[in-house]
């Protein structure tokens, strides 16, 4: 018989066991995680127990004592302790109970992290143009969604990302779809993640932490409609908007063209009413202005007429005045003329009188009476014989001439 050391024997056993791939089911007990890395739990049925060991990063579902689970992996021995363990590669929850518990645990965890936070929910455009659809091509969800979409609205570009909505590959395919969208389809206005109803096991992927985080991390707002009305998956909680069913998702996503049509009619109607109102208001205002203007014009005309009348009567007074003055002036003129004539004739009379006087006093008149005037050579008048000498030449003026003589 071959002899082994303990180490060798363990190594041999491990070698034999590593090709054993089995699935074992049982109930968890003694679940714990040490060093935040090493996961230990016991899987048991009513008679037996089996130790399980795995790394934390390998564990994708929350586990709790009492849960029924399905583990797939290989047995092995830890050489140092000689402990026989089962090393699961995958862990699946079994039965409503386990799934429900896992759901509650994950929900609490995500809620605490803020993935359900209402403030981070994004708005959707009222009239989307490009939408992404993530669902199974075989599911009724797909046909329902598309049918309602077509009934309600048109002109939308739908990019369909086919995925598995249950089974082993569901989580990966959904994560893939979101990766694609984030990388190359950020121009989408919205993404719809949907599937029809099913058991908790069927809906598992949508309650997984991975899918919830994928929805949360979507760069495009997400409408999630998973299962029937009363089902709310974790993906539903995380999504920007929650729909009860695939049909409801279509109703949330696009408006109904009949309603929009009616709304357009309504807008036009209120616009035209408003305009009519405005025209009516303006017409009234114009009428009022015309009315006031009429008044103002009439008042103005009255005023002007008044002015003219006053002017006319004033002008009349002035012309009477002028006439009076004219009469006065001509009267004065007459007086002046009369006075002047009188003055002239009086002057003439006086002048004639003076003339006569002068004439009567003039030596010539005296001469006429026979007298004579004798003057010396120097012109002086002789009034006295003493003035003359003998032989002096004298001039004697008589009426009709001059006599030259000498004194004897």
């Amino acid at each position, binding site marked *: 018989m071959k002899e082994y050391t303990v180490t060798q024997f363990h190594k041999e056993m491990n070698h034999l066991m590593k090709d054993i791939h089995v699935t074992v089911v049982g109930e968890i007990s003694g679940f714990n995680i040490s060093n935040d890395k090493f996961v230990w739990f016991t899987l048991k049925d009513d008679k037996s127990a089996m130790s399980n060991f795995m790394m934390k990063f390998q564990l994708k579902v929350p586990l709790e004592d009492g849960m029924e689970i399905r583990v797939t992996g290989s047995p092995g021995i830890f050489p140092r302790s000689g402990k026989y363990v089962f090393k699961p590669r995958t862990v699946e929850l079994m039965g409503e109970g386990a799934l429900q518990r896992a759901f509650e645990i994950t929900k609490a965890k995500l809620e605490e992290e803020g993935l359900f936070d209402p403030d981070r929910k994004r708005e959707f455009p009222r009239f989307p143009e490009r939408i992404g659809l993530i669902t199974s091509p075989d599911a009724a969800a797909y046909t329902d969604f598309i049918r309602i979409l077509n009934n309600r609205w048109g002109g939308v570009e739908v990019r369909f990302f086919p995925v598995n909505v249950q089974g082993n590959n569901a989580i990966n395919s959904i994560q893939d779809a979101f990766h694609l969208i984030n990388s190359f389809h950020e121009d989408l206005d919205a993404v719809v993640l949907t599937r029809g109803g099913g058991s908790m096991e069927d809906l598992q992927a949508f309650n997984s932490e991975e899918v919830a985080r994928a929805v949360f991390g979507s760069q495009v707002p997400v409408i999630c409609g998973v299962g029937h009305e009363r089902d709310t998956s974790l993906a539903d909680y995380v999504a920007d908007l929650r729909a009860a069913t695939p049909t409801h998702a279509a109703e949330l996503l696009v408006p109904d063209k009949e309603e929009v049509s009616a709304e357009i009619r309504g807008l036009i109607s209120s616009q035209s009413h408003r305009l009519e109102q405005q*025209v009516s208001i303006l017409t009234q205002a114009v009428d009022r202005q015309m009315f006031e203007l009429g008044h103002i014009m009439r008042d103005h005309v009255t005023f002007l007429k008044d002015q003219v009348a006053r002017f006319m009567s004033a002008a009349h007074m002035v012309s009477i005045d002028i006439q009076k003055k004219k009469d006065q002036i001509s009267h004065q003129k007459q007086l002046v003329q009369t006075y002047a004539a009188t003055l002239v004739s009086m002057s003439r009379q006086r002048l004639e009188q003076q003339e006569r006087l002068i004439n009567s006093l003039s030596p010539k008149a005296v001469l006429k009476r026979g007298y004579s005037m004798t003057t010396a050579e120097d012109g002086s008048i002789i009034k006295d014989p003493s003035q003359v000498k003998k032989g002096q030449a004298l001039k004697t003026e008589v009426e009709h001439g001059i006599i030259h003589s000498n004194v004897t």
Partner: protein
Amino acid sequence: MATKKKELSFAEAFTELETITEDLEKGLDLDEGITKFERGLELAAMLKNRLSTAENKIETIKEKYQNEGDEAEEE
């Protein structure tokens, strides 16, 4: 291709129509009001036409994210 008003998206056209309604509510000079109303009618006609004729287009995205780095470019 002429772009002028033809390229207005449904959302933009609808928003413009709503804005016109608001503007008219606020009260505008009559000329402006009539001009805007005419534009409103134009928009309404365009929107109604789109509503009755536009079809949805569905396209399946076949690319997978992992392991298809280069081919994942989709247009």
